[in-house]
C-alpha cells in the first residue's frame, strides 16, 4: 500500500516538474529573444535609424525610416481591407449563417489561416503584381489582408458568440430587427473583445515577411506611393541579415527589435483593452 502510494506520488511530482519546466521554457524563450535583440541591435538604435534612408552598400550608418513608413503603409492597406471584411464575415458566422454553410465557411477560414504565408505571397504576386506589371505597397497590403481576414473573422465570431442569448432576445422582444439587434446591442456588448482580436491580428500580420517578398518587394528610397515598390521592416531585416556587412547585420537586429517592440506594445494594448472590458455581466 505504501509502496503504491510512493509510486503515485513520484509520478505526480515528476509530471508536475516536467510541465513546470516546459512552461518555463515557453516563457523564457520570449525573454531570450528579446535579450538577444537588445544585445545585438540596441547599439544601432538611434535617431538616424528612425529618420534616415539606408546608406548605399559599403557605407556605415543610415537608417530604415522608409521601411518603417512602408510597413505602416502596407499594414494600413491590409487593415482597410482585412478588418471590415473579417468583421462582417465574423458577424455572418455568429449571427446569420445556416448551420452547414457556416461550418464550411469556418473550416475554410481556418484553412486560409493555415495557408503558408509564402503561398499567399506567390498568389498575390500572380493575381496582382503580374497584371499590374510592377511591385507595389498595394499588392503587399492585399496579400497581408488575405491573412488578416480569417483571423479577424474567427475572433469576431468568437466574441459575438460570447454575448448571452438572453441579450439578443431582449432586443428582439422589443421589436428590433435582427440587424438592429446586432448593430446596437450585440456588437457594442462584444466590442472590446472584437477590438482586441483586431489589434492582435494586425500585430500578427505586421511581422510577416514572405507575402511581402513578391509583392511590396523592397526599395532603398522612399516609396513614391501605394503603387510603387515599398520597403518594409520584415523584408528589410531579411535583406540586411543576408548581406555580408556587419553594420547591416546590426541594423537588421535593430529593425527586429523595433518590430518586436511594436508587436509587444500592440499585445499589451490589447490586453489592457480586454481587461478593462468587463462590459458583460458574469
Amino acid at each position, binding site marked *: 500500500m505504501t509502496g503504491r502510494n510512493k509510486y503515485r506520488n513520484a509520478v505526480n511530482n515528476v509530471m508536475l516538474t516536467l510541465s513546470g519546466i516546459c512552461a518555463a521554457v515557453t516563457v523564457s524563450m520570449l525573454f531570450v529573444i528579446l535579450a538577444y535583440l537588445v544585445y545585438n541591435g540596441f547599439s544601432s538604435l538611434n535617431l538616424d535609424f528612425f529618420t534616415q534612408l539606408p546608406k548605399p552598400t559599403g557605407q556605415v550608418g543610415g537608417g530604415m525610416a522608409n521601411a518603417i513608413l512602408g510597413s505602416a503603409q502596407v499594414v494600413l492597406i491590409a487593415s482597410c481591407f482585412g478588418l471590415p471584411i473579417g468583421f462582417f464575415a465574423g458577424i455572418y458566422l455568429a449571427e446569420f449563417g445556416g448551420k452547414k454553410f457556416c461550418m464550411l465557411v469556418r473550416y475554410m477560414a481556418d484553412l486560409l489561416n493555415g495557408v503558408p504565408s509564402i503561398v499567399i505571397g506567390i498568389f498575390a504576386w500572380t493575381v496582382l503584381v503580374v497584371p499590374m506589371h510592377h511591385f507595389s505597397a498595394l499588392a503587399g497590403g492585399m496579400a497581408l489582408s488575405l491573412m488578416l481576414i480569417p483571423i479577424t473573422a474567427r475572433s469576431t465570431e468568437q466574441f459575438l458568440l460570447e454575448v448571452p442569448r*438572453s441579450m439578443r432576445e*431582449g*432586443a428582439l*422582444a*422589443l421589436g*428590433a430587427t435582427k440587424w*438592429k439587434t446586432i448593430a446596437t446591442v450585440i456588437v*457594442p456588448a462584444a466590442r472590446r473583445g472584437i477590438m482586441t482580436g483586431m489589434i492582435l491580428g494586425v500585430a500578427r500580420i505586421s511581422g510577416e515577411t514572405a507575402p511581402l517578398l513578391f509583392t511590396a518587394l523592397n526599395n532603398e528610397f522612399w516609396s513614391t506611393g501605394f503603387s510603387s515598390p515599398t520597403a518594409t521592416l520584415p523584408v528589410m531585416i531579411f535583406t540586411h541579415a543576408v548581406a555580408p556587412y556587419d553594420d547591416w547585420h546590426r541594423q537588421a537586429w535593430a529593425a527586429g527589435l523595433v518590430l518586436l517592440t511594436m508587436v509587444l506594445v500592440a499585445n499589451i494594448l490589447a490586453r489592457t483593452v480586454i481587461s478593462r472590458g468587463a462590459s458583460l455581466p458574469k
Partner: protein
Amino acid sequence: MSPKMVSTSETKMAYPPETTAYAPENKMSPTSTEGTKSATATAKLRAANVNFHYGSFHALHDVSMEFQENKVTALIGPSGCGKSTFLRNLNRINETLRDTRLEGEITLDGQNIMDFDITEVRRRVGMVFQRPNPFPKSIFENIIYGPKINGMLKGTSAAEIVEKSLRRAALWEEAKDKLHESAYALSGGQQQRLCIARALAVNPEVLLLDEPCSALDPIATAKIEDLLVSLKDQCTIVIVTHNMQQAARVADTTGFFLMGRLIEHAKTDMIFKNPACKETEDYITGRFG
C-alpha cells in the same frame, strides 16, 4: 412595496387608452378544448390548436387558450411541460431558434400574428425574461432603446418616456439619481424591474413574463407581483411561473400545463380550490412536479 408607488394616472403620451370595455367575468370552461367560442369576443390574445416542434420533439399538443384583456393569466406546470415554449410563441420569439415548427393559429385582436410584421408583433406583445437581461448600457439608454428603434420618439421627449416607464415599473425613486449609470449597477430585483420598464416603454398591449422572479429574492419578488397587479389595467399580462403561490396571488385565471398539453384553464380560485381535472389536483397538492 405598495402598488401606490406606481403612478398610472397621467396619460399624456400615447399609452394605451383606459380600456373601453372590461372583459366580462371569465367564462371559460375548465377544459381547454373548443366550444367556448362565445368568450372569444373579448379575448385580446387567442391561441387555437397550437402545436410546436423542436426538431423531432413535439413540445406542444393542440393548445387552445384565450387571454382576456386587462387580466393576468398565469401558466403553471412542472418543468418541461411546455408553458415557456407556449409563452415564447405568443410574441414569435421562438422563431429565433433553428429547426422549429409552429402549427395552429395565434391571434392578437382577432388578427393572425403571422400576418403582422414580426417587429410589430413584438412591439405590441412585450416580453420579460427569466433572468434580468439589461443591455450593457445606461439605465436611460436601456429604457429608450425600444422607443428609439420603433420610431416612437417623435413628439415626446426621451426623458419623459424614461420617467414614465420607470414610474410604471416602480423603479423611479430608486433609479432617478443614477439614470446615466450602467444598468449593472442595479441589484437583481431592480434590474428585473428595469427590464419591465424597458418593455413598457414601447406601450405593449400584452406583456409576457417568463418566470420573472425565479432569480430574485422574496422581497424583490413581492415588488414585482405588486407591480403586475397594478399594470393590468394598462395591458394584458401572461406570466409563466413555477411558484403556485405566485399564481394564486397575481393571476385572475390560471392554466395548468402537463407534458405539452393544456390540462385546464379556469379562474385561479377554481384551479386552486376546486380543479376539474385529476392531474391539476395532483400537481396543486404537490403529489408530483
